[in-house]
């Protein structure tokens, strides 16, 4: 084994290991950006950076919710269906019922949050497996979406609704503003509030958390409610982007969200995640799509690359965090 006191980047070995454990994913992100930028000039343009940030905003919302669920030792598979339900509710309320946009969005968010509460309640109150619960509610939610929309695509022609995706404040499109605000709020929520501490404690050791007076019901329900709420926001952005309400959208969107969480150092054993990490994971996924498309790498290789990058990043993370035992 290497000597004790060897230094890397001016840090001693242990510190370097801790640093890489926490921010190694950032290094990967940076390397990735540099490589793509060298290979493809159009990647470097500001408009493309803004593109990517706008594009990832949908996955970001879902991923933040997902990281809460995973951190409580669960998973939220209902997010994709939530997108569809939110979309169909928006379409029906705005196009068919003539509701105002803020009221329709509010209603959609209330509904998606309510489904989050239902998920969390079932999981915590009856101690059911999150995988099973959300797998089932996902079916119900998508069914509801089909029911609400009548299985038809509902166009939303209202120009101001489309603005939610396309309007710019200065050079920054609105979804990026939402991304920034939600990121800050999530960071504060997870790292600076009691609720965040409870989420970590419950995820790491539920029995110990109970013995420390933490309410599992409140914590898990809260986590899934937030996941539902964020899926609602994602659904609004999605619907504004496509200007169409459909019940078949969002299939498989859990995958990218889970991938972003895992890249960001979220542990499936629960109790470990960081918001900056997840944000970087989100951007890595975004850059994989964007960069490879710009470079002109065949689409067939993209999902393979995504899979390989995730396994590689997680392996690297494990090597970096390797404990002596």
């Amino acid at each position, binding site marked *: 084994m290497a000597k004790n006191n060897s230094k890397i980047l001016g840090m001693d070995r242990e510190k370097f290991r801790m640093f890489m454990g926490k921010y190694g994913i950032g290094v990967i992100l940076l390397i990735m950006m540099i490589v793509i930028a060298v290979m493809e000039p159009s990647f470097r343009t500001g408009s493309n950076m803004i593109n990517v940030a706008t594009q990832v905003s949908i996955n970001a919302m879902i991923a933040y919710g997902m990281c809460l669920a995973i951190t409580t030792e669960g998973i939220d598979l209902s997010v994709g269906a939530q997108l569809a339900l939110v979309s169909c509710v928006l379409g029906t309320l705005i196009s068919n019922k003539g509701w105002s946009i803020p009221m329709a969005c509010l209603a959609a968010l209330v509904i998606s949050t309510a489904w989050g509460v239902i998920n969390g309640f079932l999981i915590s109150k009856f101690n059911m497996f999150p995988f099973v619960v959300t797998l089932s509610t996902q079916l119900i939610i998508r069914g509801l979406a089909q029911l609400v929309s009548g299985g038809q695509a509902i166009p939303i022609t209202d120009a101001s609704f489309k603005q939610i995706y396309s309007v710019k404040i200065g050079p920054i499109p609105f979804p990026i503003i939402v991304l920034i605000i939600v990121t800050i709020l999530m960071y504060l929520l997870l790292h600076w509030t009691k609720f965040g501490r409870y989420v970590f404690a419950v995820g790491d050791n539920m029995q110990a958390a109970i013995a420390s007076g933490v309410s599992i019901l409140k914590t898990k329900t809260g986590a899934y409610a937030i996941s539902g709420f964020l899926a609602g926001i994602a659904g609004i952005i999605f619907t504004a982007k*496509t200007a169409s309400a*459909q019940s078949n959208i969002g299939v498989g969107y859990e995958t990218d969200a889970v991938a972003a969480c895992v890249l960001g150092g979220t542990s499936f054993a629960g109790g470990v995640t960081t918001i900056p990490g997840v944000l970087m994971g989100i951007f890595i996924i975004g850059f994989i799509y964007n960069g490879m498309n710009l470079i*002109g790498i065949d689409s067939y290789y993209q999902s393979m690359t995504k899979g390989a990058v995730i396994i590689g990043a997680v392996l690297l993370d494990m090597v970096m965090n390797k404990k002596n035992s």
Partner: protein
Amino acid sequence: MKKKVLSVLLCAAMVASMAIGCGSDKKDDTAGKTDDKKTEDEAKGGDVNGDGKLVVGYISKNIVDPFHAPINDYAKETLDGLKKDGTIDDWTGVLDGETDANKQIDRADECIAKNCDYVIILPAEATASDAAVTKMTDAGIKVIVVNSKTDSTDDVAMAYVGPDDVEAGKMLAQWVIDNVPDGGKYAHCQGVIGNSAQIQRGQGIEELMKDNDKFESVGDFPCEWQADKAANVATDMMNQYGDELKAIICDNDDMSSAAQKACNDAGRTDIVCVGVDGNENPLQMVKDGEMGATVLQDGPGQVGGAIDLIKKAINGETTEKEVMIPFVLVTKDNVDEYLKK
């Protein structure tokens, strides 16, 4: 607290790279604007945005289903050829739309970033994918919509190349009417609801079957283009209606071949199943006599039509606004012709 410093540096690097990008972006913007004016004058040339390079974008609907795979292959082959012989400078490669309007809009962003002059898009959805088309046309790209229209295709796209799906629906219905002379009950397996192909094919089927007294529909079943779901419909309906069930009309032939297989397996080779597309598996069934016919949609022909339009535009020729590629009824007589492809 070195790690904190480093993490701050990291974030700074990210922000800086974005900021630098923004800076250079403004230049691009102004350049783009002057170029726009130029193109007005030099509209004849193929270089639409006037950056000195001729770039073609290709946004697929998806890269997995058997109907789209040969289309994508044909596009790849043809566009690679054009790049090699110097007709175009570059193309984007097959961009994966994942049958998801959201992803197609993201791919459209990338075509804009890549300064494409022409983009061929096979929309995933009529309404939802429209933003991808309008986004690109707003950026000055000439967009050719292939296979199915988006809402504003007629207004903003350079052209539409596609099949006449209403006609295809009529061909399906006609085949059933011709081959089940006594009439009876029939089921209809639909594609993804809201999809223009689904709507129009359904319309064509409806048009002929509605007025035909001999036939009675037992229902329209949403099968999302999926073979296994259609097979389930076939078995369920056979159970429910027995010998009264005479035909299953499917919006695509992945479904019709699966339905036919289910019927044949149940000893009901008399049930007439038919669908649209001309995928390899159904064609093989037609050849083997397991299925009566399938309606072939010439996918590669459509994308070929789109590429032809681009070639014409580059040469300064006038281009049609709408090109219809005909369907072909494939039976045992002519199946060899198409199976070879």
